[in-house]
């Protein structure tokens, strides 16, 4: 989520910029006309590629623009998790135990309900006996669960705040919880919940590892784009098109650097495939003009040549289309 700074965190890993929060992804797309590419997949469905999720990976030009325009901040995320303090670990451990108790109570209540409806003897005496038996069972289960928590190391499990329970479940009494006699170290079935965002942990501290400018990020060694004329030309051309309100996507399918859309790519077809030429004097072969022009025309697109002038920091555009004759 957007921090106190009001800037969107771009988490940098291996000199690539990722956005991990869906709200941030929506913001940069709807307010800042930058799409990126969703790359996340499920570990056991890694071959599927039709519906991808977080993280969103940004083209380097997109990340540079977001930071230069003071929309985003770069975070060296790998270093943003210092060793937790003892107190933080204790809080974490407590939350973990609370979660466990809640789960066991829910299981208990469910079992009680099922056995009550199973058509066994319904006399007051039988009910009383059964209740006593079940309470005893619950108490033992809880003790076993606690014992298993204590015996495993603090780093073995991650448990977030307890989820709200579903109604009639009542947590077992505190006195039962503290009694640990009779624990055999066996396991009680329970779910370990891994929080979706590790940044929710108390000890997550991105501030000492946040870089507010491209220069600062380069000095810290986590980022190096743009580092040469070709990359400066791409950043310049990308910015120029973006400032005119266009959306850009990857251009590989049409033989260019970008596809240029007049609005959100979910709503519009692209009108142009753009290629960036890093100097007005760069060699341009007629065969390139033919290839770009013909491909674009066949797909109802024109090809844009975006020529970067590094002295003037300006972009000039030429549009190529098949002439329609000859």
């Amino acid at each position, binding site marked *: 989520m957007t921090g106190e700074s009001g800037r969107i965190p771009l988490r940098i890993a291996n000199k690539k910029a990722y956005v991990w929060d869906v709200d941030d992804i929506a913001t940069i797309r709807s307010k800042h006309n930058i799409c990126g590419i969703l790359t996340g997949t499920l570990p056991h469905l890694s071959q599927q590629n039709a519906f991808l999720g977080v993280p969103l990976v940004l083209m380097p030009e997109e990340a540079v623009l977001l930071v230069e325009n003071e929309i985003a901040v770069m975070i060296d995320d790998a270093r943003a998790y210092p060793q937790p303090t003892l107190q933080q670990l204790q809080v974490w451990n407590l939350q973990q135990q609370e979660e466990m108790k809640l789960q066991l109570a829910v299981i208990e209540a469910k079992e009680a309900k099922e056995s009550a409806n199973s058509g066994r003897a319904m006399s007051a005496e039988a009910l009383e006996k059964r209740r006593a038996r079940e309470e005893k069972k619950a108490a033992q289960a809880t003790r076993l669960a606690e014992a298993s928590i204590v015996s495993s190391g603090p780093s073995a499990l991650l448990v977030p705040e307890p989820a709200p329970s579903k109604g009639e479940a009542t947590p077992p009494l505190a006195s039962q919880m503290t009694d640990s006699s009779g624990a055999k170290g066996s396991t009680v079935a329970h779910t370990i919940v891994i929080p979706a965002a590790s940044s929710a942990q108390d000890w997550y501290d991105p501030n000492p590892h946040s870089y507010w400018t491209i220069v600062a990020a380069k000095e810290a060694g986590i980022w190096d784009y743009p580092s040469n004329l070709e990359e400066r030309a791409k950043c310049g051309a990308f910015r120029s098109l973006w400032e005119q309100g266009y959306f850009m996507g990857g251009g590989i399918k049409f033989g260019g650097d970008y596809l240029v859309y007049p609005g959100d790519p979910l709503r519009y077809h692209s009108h142009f495939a753009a290629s960036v030429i890093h100097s007005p004097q760069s060699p*341009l072969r007629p065969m390139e003009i033919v290839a770009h022009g013909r491909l674009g025309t066949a797909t109802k697109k024109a090809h844009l040549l975006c*020529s970067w002038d590094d002295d003037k920091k300006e972009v000039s555009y030429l549009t190529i289309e098949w002439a329609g004759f000859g």
Partner: protein
Amino acid sequence: MESHPSFQGLSEILEKYPRAAGAMFQAYNDVVYAQQWADVEVIELPDCKRGAIKGRKPDTDDVLHVVPCTLAETLSISWLQSALSHLLNPPQVYLAITSEDASIVYYKISQGIVKPPV
């Protein structure tokens, strides 16, 4: 080439820019005889060391420009821009690309970001 009916009008520009003479001669003849353009004239482009062709498509009023080149040449953005500025910045020029087997293809080069026709 010298006996071709269009040589007379082209001889001056062909002799001045011999390296571009082949493409010029081929493009000019294609524009005049195959495309049947009207009011065809030759304009000199000193920076590009060649001539350009000006004319109108049959039954239209817009004056269009053709800049010839061969497939083997190496151009640049600044080369195209100098041709455009010499032709007094028309919205577009046609680049006539010729090859050794006498085939020719035209590509429209427009200034700025121009949306393709729907």
